[in-house]
């Protein structure tokens, strides 16, 4: 017994000493630090891994090819959240102070973590980029000063998908009496689009039903039984991780036509469709950006990163949907840094400077071409009031081996979104007693 006690004491002391050792760290001066909240393990890993790889590869590309941004090297550290909110908050706190200026920008890559960090970011003055996710009302920069749901929120996504449905049916007038179902991940992520879809169903007279799937989403038999009975005209899928492939398999099992299933842009990647095999043929999903590795930026990544043996992914995974999303996300963040350096000088930016940079971000078609992203993303411009920029997506279809576009860029209807965003943001501001910024006075 005595010996065991001694071993246990040693173990505990050792662990404690090492925690303390981890707290101190050397810093370099001309470096911009980016905390990377990732999940490479757990039920969402199939989707978390390619995104994290794409992000890392693009940062490494800038370092290897250009020596960083205007001489400021980019450093980053990954922290595994496992999609768990409490762990994500811990990661954020762990990394926010690192680097000479601290974290200048954070991408939480989880709606739950985004909600928690939305409460912390204003105090720490660190902007959050939630590209294609996050809370929909955070598009309103006057209330949500530190959230940047770039390229589109879930309300925008739902509107884009419904626009596509309307196009296919021959106009919104034809939607009357149709049945639309939403199969969603039962978390804030999946619930986000519901208010917008309810609003649309009121306006256009279609029946809308929302069917929740419990986290992590491997058990969906009951949900798809309901769909088999109700036979909705379209099923929208708001899943993530293993839930997506399970949904497609279940749809195949109840013989629901896959070409009437439209996923959000988080339900339209390779790991979502490949497990179902031929069952996913014809499945549709929204796409925030182009797919494939045929763009100049990919050639540069292969040449400057992979040929030097510094790539994060396997070479054949370059150009996958979520890999490209990671690249695009890193591109937008680093473009904002360029913008900020043009104003504040070529040195690492602080969170506050980064917010200014994001609010004044204007990515033009010329700049997109110059950076090697032509055809990959759509030009966008942000402002103090509008933290979303553009809200456009295309619809892609899986043919059993690859994705191809079946629509042109569809834009979300800002006339529909903006009043809803303003109302939701006002409610949040009242609850939190926030006085909205007057954007007409901001520079």
């Amino acid at each position, binding site marked *: 017994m005595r010996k*065991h006690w001694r071993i246990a*004491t040693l173990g505990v002391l050792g*662990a404690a000493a090492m925690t303390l050792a981890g707290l101190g*760290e050397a810093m370099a001066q001309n470096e911009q630090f980016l905390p990377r909240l990732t999940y490479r393990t757990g039920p969402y890993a199939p989707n978390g891994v390619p995104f994290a790889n794409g992000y890392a590869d693009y940062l490494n590309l800038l370092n290897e090819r250009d020596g960083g941004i205007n001489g400021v090297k980019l450093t980053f550290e990954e*922290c595994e959240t496992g999609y768990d909110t409490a762990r994500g908050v811990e990661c954020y706190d762990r990394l926010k102070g690192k680097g000479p200026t601290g974290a200048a920008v954070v991408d939480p890559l989880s709606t739950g973590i985004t*909600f928690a960090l939305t409460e912390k970011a204003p105090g720490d003055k660190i902007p959050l980029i939630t590209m294609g996710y996050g809370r929909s009302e955070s598009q309103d920069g006057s209330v949500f000063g530190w959230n940047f749901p770039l390229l589109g929120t879930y309300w925008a996504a739902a509107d884009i998908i419904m626009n596509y449905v309307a196009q296919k049916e021959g106009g919104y007038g034809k939607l009357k009496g149709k049945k639309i179902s939403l199969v969603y991940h039962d978390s804030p992520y999946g619930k986000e689009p519901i208010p917008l879809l309810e609003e649309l169903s009121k306006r256009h007279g279609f029946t809308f039903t929302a069917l929740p799937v419990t986290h992590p989403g491997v058990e969906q038999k009951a949900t798809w039984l309901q769909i088999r009975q109700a036979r909705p005209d379209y099923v929208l899928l708001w899943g993530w991780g293993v839930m997506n492939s399970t949904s497609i398999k279940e749809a195949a099992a109840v013989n629901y036509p896959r070409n009437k299933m439209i996923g959000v842009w988080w339900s339209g990647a390779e790991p979502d469709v490949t497990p179902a095999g031929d069952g996913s043929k014809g499945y549709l999903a929204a796409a925030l950006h182009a797919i494939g590795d045929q763009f100049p930026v990919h050639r540069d990544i292969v040449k400057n990163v992979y040929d030097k043996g510094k790539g994060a992914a396997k070479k054949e995974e370059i150009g996958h949907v979520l890999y490209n999303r990671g690249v695009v996300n890193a591109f937008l963040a680093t473009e904002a840094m360029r913008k900020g350096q043009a104003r504040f000088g070529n040195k690492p930016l602080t969170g506050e400077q980064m917010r200014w940079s994001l609010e004044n971000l204007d990515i033009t078609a010329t700049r997109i071409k110059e950076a090697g992203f032509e055809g990959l993303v759509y030009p966008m411009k942000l402002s103090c009031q509008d933290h979303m920029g553009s809200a456009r997506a295309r619809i892609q279809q899986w043919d059993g081996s690859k994705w191809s576009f079946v629509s042109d860029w569809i834009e979300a209807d800002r006339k529909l979104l903006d009043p809803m965003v303003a109302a939701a943001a006002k409610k949040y501001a009242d609850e939190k007693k926030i006085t909205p910024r007057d954007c007409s006075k901001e520079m």
Partner: protein
Amino acid sequence: MLYREAGQFKTSYDDDQAVFPIRQDRWGMAFILAVAYVALPFFATDYFITSIMIPFLIYALAAIGLNLLTGYCGQVSLGTGGFMAVGAYAAYNLAIRVPELNLIVVFILSGGAAAMVGVVFGIPSLRIKGFYLAVATLAAQFFLDWAFSRIKWFTNYTPSGSVAAPPLDIFGFAINTPDRRYFLILVIVTVMALAAKNLVRGRVGRSWMAIRDMDIAAEIIGIRPLRAKLSAFAVSSFFAGVAGALWAFLHLGAWEPLAFDINRSFLLLFMVIIGGLGSILGCFLGAAFILMVPLALNQIPTALGMPLSTAMISHLEFMIFGALIVFFLIVEPHGLARLWALGKEKLRLWPFPH
């Protein structure tokens, strides 16, 4: 030598019945409190306060709640996460709908709400025991999860079902920095841990322990199972409810029902089992073990500059942590608190063991 009690005479019943009868323990406790109240706010980094101390204290509080029920009264519960959720959502609704309420009152009332729900779900404990009761409390967990994600009133009709705490202040003093949040939690946990310690030493605690050890014998000597069991459920849920409110308001800031899912309940049960059933100290040790060891394991490779991938570090964390749990349970099935007690026994005799 360190623990030599020679010369410490107890001359009154009060001395004999003190929480810490040995002088060294009193000093040790005073030292720990001094570190927690004075040294940490001054010297610890924000990361240590927000990501280690705050969750540690809240977990410890919830673990005390569960330990009162499971460790002292012998009623296995898998519903602690659900009772924490009751506390969190009660606090949210009170703070949003009755903004005049003082934050302390909000916390007490949300504990009260959790206590009431706890009593309702405790009623089956009068008929069923052991594993069957665990299943009944599991039902509480799932029902409460369901209620908070489906009944929109609880979340004030927010579109996504995620709610955020309003700005917090006590008597005009804004609770907005890590140090202030930590201090508030520390005060609450100190007061409630002391209350729990005294509760289990008194009549109520003794009646719980009698029920735990043999309920028929307890009934024969005049302890009413109804009152004992339901009071255990009420007090336990009160602690869990306050912990839930603190977790939501002061740790996360914004949360969804997933923050209080079944995993939270399991985690708390592990804390109580590894820390030591029927020990208040064990709750703190268990919370520290379950919370801090994975964080330490996750940060060691990076701190030592080992070139491991994020995924590998994460897998190692799971494996080593799992192995450590098994190791500690084999070495001392009665938990870390028992290890500490054994160590103390040895220290009393050291350096001249028999």
